[in-house]
């Protein structure tokens, strides 16, 4: 498995797209930090990059990589290697490269300008988001045989989690505002990795008071140490679950 990952990483490094992504993140974060004297404010600005751009790039890069590596996968399947090993090796290779790019691109500036707990949580949530969206992209690329359909499905999933989901949640909150919704709000947030990451960082920033009633609920639940454990557990599920489904489909896939 690690051998496969090694070749995947070699291959990714040769393509230079990843290097461009790293440089882009570096440029954005240095720019944001030099615009603001207060590091915490820049972290908030960086948060929106982490929540929207990082998942988008993770999903698009992973899906295109998977279809471009189709020949390689075909070659491996005829060798004495189990399909689990092949897919997990591919996943590990892509996941390590994407995480490294994120940690260099956002991690280094954060360490220089804002080496606080908030900065740490921002990095943690970014890593977890990268991993879960790589995992989601693996699911859609394994499920769809056609490249265009695979990329389409990946983008749709990203759009759903980044934009549509919040609209749905808002709609639910408005239509049922006469009922006690605190538990429902927490459950709804768990169903979206981007929401979980957002809550993780906002809790550290102490600005949840700005979010009104929901913010109070969040603060009470996610601010506790149980809440933190819960968040981590749910984020882990968001990494592992799509991957397990992908492995299951891949085992029966005709190449």
């Amino acid at each position: 498995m690690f051998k496969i990952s090694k070749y995947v990483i070699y291959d990714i490094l040769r393509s230079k797209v990843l290097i461009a992504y790293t440089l882009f993140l570096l440029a954005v974060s240095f720019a944001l930090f030099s615009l603001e004297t207060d590091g915490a404010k820049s972290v908030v600005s960086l948060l929106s990059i982490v929540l929207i751009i990082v998942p988008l790039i993770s999903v698009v890069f992973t899906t295109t990589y998977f279809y471009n590596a189709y020949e390689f996968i075909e070659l491996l399947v005829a060798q004495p290697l189990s399909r689990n090993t092949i897919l997990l090796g591919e996943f590990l290779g892509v996941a390590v490269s994407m995480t490294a790019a994120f940690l260099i691109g956002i991690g280094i500036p954060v360490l220089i300008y804002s080496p606080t707990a908030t900065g740490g949580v921002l990095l943690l949530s970014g890593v977890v988001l990268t991993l879960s969206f790589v995992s989601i992209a693996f699911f859609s690329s394994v499920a769809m045989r056609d490249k265009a359909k695979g990329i389409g499905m990946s983008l749709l999933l990203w759009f759903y989690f980044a934009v549509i989901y919040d609209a749905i949640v808002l709609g639910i909150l408005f239509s049922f505002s006469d009922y006690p919704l605190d538990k429902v709000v927490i459950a709804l947030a768990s169903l979206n990795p981007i929401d979980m990451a957002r809550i993780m960082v906002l809790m550290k920033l102490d600005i949840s008071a700005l979010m009104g009633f929901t913010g109070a609920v969040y603060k009470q639940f996610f601010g506790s140490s149980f809440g933190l454990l819960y968040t981590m557990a749910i984020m882990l599920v968001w990494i592992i679950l799509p991957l397990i489904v992908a492995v299951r489909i891949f085992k029966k896939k005709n190449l």
Partner: protein
Amino acid sequence: MIRTENLEKHFGKLHVLKGVNTSFSGGEVISVIGPNGSGKTTLIKSILGMVVADKGKIYFDNKDVANDFTYRHHIGYMPQIGRYPENMKMGQLFAMMKDLRKSTSALDEELLNEFHLTAMFDKPMRTLSGGTTQKVSAALAFLFNPKVLILDEPTAGLDPVASEILKAKILKAKGEGKLVIVTSHIMSEVEEMADKIMYLFEGKINFFKTIADLKAETGEEKLGKAIAKIMKREANV
């Protein structure tokens, strides 16, 4: 060495394999022939585990290969159209395959030398011509000295010299007691190499006979004519 039982495969509505029962043993060259789309490649890919059959079982040395991958240590596969990582150089490809297979048996680099591939080791795979890619596929299939070789239209796209080298290599492998499964459309080539012929038609085995039997049965000298005669006879029944 390899046995299949009631192999069935659908691709959507298309019923590609309709219950294939067969068995192959070592020291033979088996030629699988049949019209385009008759299920030859699907049969081969099922044996390799690249395609998962809907029903039926495949045994390798009397062991069921479902959920097993270790048996592929003993198989060398040459695909119809070899597709390789484009950014990789030829030398890197060979190094990677050696690294991934962790083969303990001695390497067989005969084809590598005879096709003069080592001289092209620093060429990226995407720049190679179709024929050279076929040579790479062939060299890779034989490299790990497997006891079963599965070659899907091996000589298509090869120049006459390379074709002859490959045919000689196939016959040599057979002499070493290996099982060679070849698909081909070129009857003269089949006649040169094969011991037995399996004719697949619309996902079923139409016949599986030795060349001598086929000729004796039809009274024809040429294999192509013998097969044509059998096909006509079957059509009339």
